[in-house]
């Protein structure tokens, strides 16, 4: 009953929050309109959204967001330093292949996005069976340490959140 009324609880919440933010007006009236939209839109489009990603540990999400925000600031300073004070052709850039233990598409997508936003790495591709990510490093001496960092810092938390 509840799942038929609210097929995507997270999507409902997201639409309501985005509606309030779009109106730039945090008030009860806007929140009610947002909630009504959040109930109607997922119901009308639920046929196109067969998958239902589940969040298992909401508190870990907050921890994860804080860590990623902090890493974005650190990575910006690092990349700015590399751009300003190093010659581009002397940077030790290379591709690395990061094996994945995550299996759900949502978790892999979030991990790929996180890798792009954080220190010196850009996600370039995923393997055809979804078992590894191709990551480009701007400057690395130790690819193993970079892989280990990605796995312990981001992947383990995402595993707790999504799987």
């Amino acid at each position, binding site marked *: 009953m509840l799942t038929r009324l609210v097929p995507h609880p997270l999507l409902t919440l997201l639409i309501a929050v*985005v509606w*309030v*933010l*779009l109106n*730039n007006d*945090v008030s009860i009236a806007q929140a009610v309109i947002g909630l009504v939209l959040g109930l109607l839109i997922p119901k009308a489009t639920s046929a196109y959204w067969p998958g239902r990603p589940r969040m298992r540990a909401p508190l870990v999400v907050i921890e994860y967001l804080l860590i990623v925000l902090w890493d*974005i*600031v650190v*990575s*910006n300073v690092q*990349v*700015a330093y*590399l*751009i*300003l004070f190093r010659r*581009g*052709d002397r*940077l030790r*850039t290379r*591709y*690395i*292949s990061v*094996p994945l233990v995550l299996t759900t598409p949502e978790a892999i997508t979030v991990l*790929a*996005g996180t890798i*792009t*936003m954080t220190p*010196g790495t*850009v*996600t*370039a*591709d*995923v*393997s*055809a*069976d979804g*078992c*590894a990510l*191709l990551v*480009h490093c*701007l400057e690395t001496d130790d690819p193993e340490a970079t892989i280990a960092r990605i796995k312990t810092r981001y992947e383990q938390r995402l595993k707790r959140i999504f799987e």
Partner: protein
Amino acid sequence: MPFLSEVLIASLILIGAFFLFVGSLGLAKLPDLMRRLHGPTKATTLGIGSMLVASMLYFLLVGGHFSVHELLITIFLFLTAPVSAHMIAKAHILRSRRERSALPVTGGKVGWATLDENGS
């Protein structure tokens, strides 16, 4: 406007401008496409973020009301920057033979999704 908030907002805008400049400089200066991608995906994120925080503070301290549009801009920016970088990298791998020969192996049975003909 009180002096302190003026200093705070001005310095945030300057930090933002600095990082936006460095990001664009990286785009122009670095030698190849994959290295160039690092500039706009990272340095500009903090640049824009800093400007947006400055904008929120300005409306809060000077306008006297809370502006939340900036949060939405941040969310959309964080969603779109990795996706566009990812698409540019994929197109580059597909086009450049030299880039393809430099790729590491996946470690699994199949190749990278861009190049694997049987892949999903």
